């Protein structure tokens, strides 16, 4: 978890310790859960095929979580994640199956379209100054209609066997789509933590006024964030198209809530200015674990939603309690509380003042 305040400041050491602790907690939960699941299934869960299936369906949640995270880091929400992903997947499927377009061109067209939709959304938000929540809600509605129009009620599955092959390929039992997701996460991390453009993005999200005064155009950052979000959704759509047996109008229907859950569990604040690439990836892992455990013990699928809801609630409430605890301790010892960032601003959070009255 990184915020702009930390950059170069003396507090960076303390903050890094804190951020490490959040990520470590998640890491411990992930490893512990994985081990427990493995033991409960008497070792079957560690074997090649199980690992492969597990990772195969992890790629898309990671990517949509990252797409939402990029929008969140400038303080925006992207409700169109699921609809855009589904629409792009259907577009690619229809182009390949009905249009006879070769797979590479169709994939490129799909990703470009997704990026373009993100760009248009961003420009619209900046130009009209309407709340991003409502604009993306409108875009979501339009895209849902477009997806239905493209795919209708059928399932498009007659597309490129090569792409499907690629989606199922798994050297050393690690699926290619999962490696793609990891590579994208790595690139995104480099962009956000090291590149100037990424730092600008975070600056605009952390404190728009300060960013503007230091010569950063917040409008441009919002457009950039939505474009990037669209691009990531496009990649997620590619992985989904490649690994699913076929695309239809229900693809993307259940992406929206997990896309928010992953960054929030991973420790990203809704107020903008903070990102946690690794945390988001780990959170997607945890949610996949819950799903895998559900399948292992053949429980009702509804348990997954119920548990994810409780985990999200527990994470934010726990983080908040931890923060107040730290603040109190800081006051008692007569020194400043450890870190300015982290969960605190997270929780105070907001869509324009969606925070709680205290």
């Amino acid at each position, binding site marked *: 978890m990184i915020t702009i305040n930390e950059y170069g400041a003396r507090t960076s050491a303390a903050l890094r310790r804190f951020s490490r602790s959040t990520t470590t907690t998640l890491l411990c939960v992930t490893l512990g859960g994985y081990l427990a699941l493995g033991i409960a299934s008497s070792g079957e869960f560690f074997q090649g095929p199980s690992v492969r299936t597990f990772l195969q369906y992890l790629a898309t949640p990671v990517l949509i979580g990252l797409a939402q995270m990029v929008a969140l880091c400038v303080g925006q*929400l992207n409700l169109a994640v699921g609809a855009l992903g589904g629409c792009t997947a259907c577009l690619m499927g229809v182009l390949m199956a009905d249009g006879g377009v070769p797979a590479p061109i169709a994939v490129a067209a799909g990703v470009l379209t997704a990026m373009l939709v993100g760009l248009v959304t961003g420009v*619209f938000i900046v130009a*009209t*100054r*309407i*709340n991003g*929540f*409502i*604009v993306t*809600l*409108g*875009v*979501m*509605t*339009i*895209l*849902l*209609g*477009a997806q*239905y*129009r493209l795919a*209708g009620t059928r399932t498009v599955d007659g597309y490129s066997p090569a792409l499907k092959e690629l989606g199922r390929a798994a050297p050393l039992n690690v699926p290619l789509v999962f490696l793609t997701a990891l590579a994208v996460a790595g690139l995104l991390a480099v962009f956000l933590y090291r590149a100037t453009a990424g730092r600008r993005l975070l600056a605009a999200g952390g404190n728009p006024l300060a960013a503007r005064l230091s010569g950063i155009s917040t409008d441009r950052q919002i457009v950039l964030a939505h474009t990037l979000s669209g691009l990531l959704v496009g990649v997620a759509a590619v992985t989904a198209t490649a690994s699913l047996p076929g695309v239809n109008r229900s693809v993307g229907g259940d992406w929206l*809530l997990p896309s*928010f*859950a992953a960054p*929030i569990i991973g420790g990203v604040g*809704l*107020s903008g200015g903070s990102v946690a690439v690794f945390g988001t990836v780990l959170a997607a892992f945890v949610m996949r674990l819950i799903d895998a455990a559900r399948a292992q013990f053949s429980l*009702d699928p*509804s*348990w*997954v*939603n*119920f*548990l*994810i*809801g*409780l985990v*999200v*609630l527990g994470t*934010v*409430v726990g983080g*908040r*309690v931890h923060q107040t605890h730290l603040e109190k301790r800081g006051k008692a010892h007569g020194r400043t509380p450890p870190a300015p960032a982290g969960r605190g601003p997270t*929780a*105070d*959070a*907001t*869509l*324009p*003042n*969606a*925070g*709680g*009255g*205290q």
Partner: protein
Amino acid sequence: MRTPVTAPEHVAGEAAGAQRPPRRLPFWVDQRLGLLVLTVALAALFGVLRPAFLDQRLVLFPLLREISTLTVVALAQLAVLSVGHMNLAVGRMAAFGALFAGLGYDRLHLPLQLGLLVCLFAGAVIGGLTGWIIARTGVSSFVVTLAMDFALMGLVSLLYSALTENAAFTTRPSGLLDLRSASLADICVGRVCGSPAVPQMAQFTVLALVGLGFLYTRTRMGRELLLTGANPKAAELSGIPTGRRVILAHSLSGLLAALAGFMAAVSTGTFRASIGDDFMLPSFLGAVLGGTLLTGGVVCVVGALLGTSLVAVIRKGLDLLGVGLESLNIYLGCVLLLALSADRVRAVVSYRKVVRST
């Protein structure tokens, strides 16, 4: 009934009597008037193009029944928007309330009215719990209601599959079928005092509209809710228990959502988990088109009815004109974005005019 917290109506009225205050915008900026004119004009247009649109029993009756339900959904969203929060779990709260009504009818053989009370109580409790978590921890309402949405989605389906055989309560207490199909003409003396197009269920909507309108314009409590939404800090400093107001707003939202769930269940005749699945979009559409601000502090109770009506009329009209289901969402999304940008343009233009004239 649009009530900005800064200008109490009687004060504005007195001032207008003596001398038109300069900051007052001209009447054609009023969003509600535009909505009303647009809705009536569209209904007339559809009526001319397709005379079937004005069929009282077959088209207008179901249309008005849908409007009644969705208006209550929009009011449920409006109640939380008034304190600057959001409720993403409206649909699930509706399902949660309906579950209890169904349970009461099925297991305890409650009469119709008592079941409705149980349903409202359950909704208010779950809403109050959400509000309590938000007020107590200070976590953003977006995150908490999102998590609530997940948790309730799982919980409701689990309960339905545990309590029923085919995931629905089909026991119908006496009076339920009447409530479903009765119109004003049935309970009045035929054509003398009521049209067969107005469903009896509209009574709940009228009750909710009047109740909320009274709360926000006439009572101290309503003012305090709006002030909490406009500026939580100022509200806190002026001695308003903002935490309690937040809880009140959320339990009100839960109560209205449960009422909407009951109405939806009555219109379909069964109590099932899928009630409220598609409530989230209309809830924001109705409230925001009607002029309620997402940032809190400004609500427009009648606007919720007008916004919902506009959307429902467009949906039904396009449906009758033979626009396929698949394109409907595309047009709806476009209408939302256009309406909001037009509103924005109008506000900017009129603001400039006012500024120039003073």
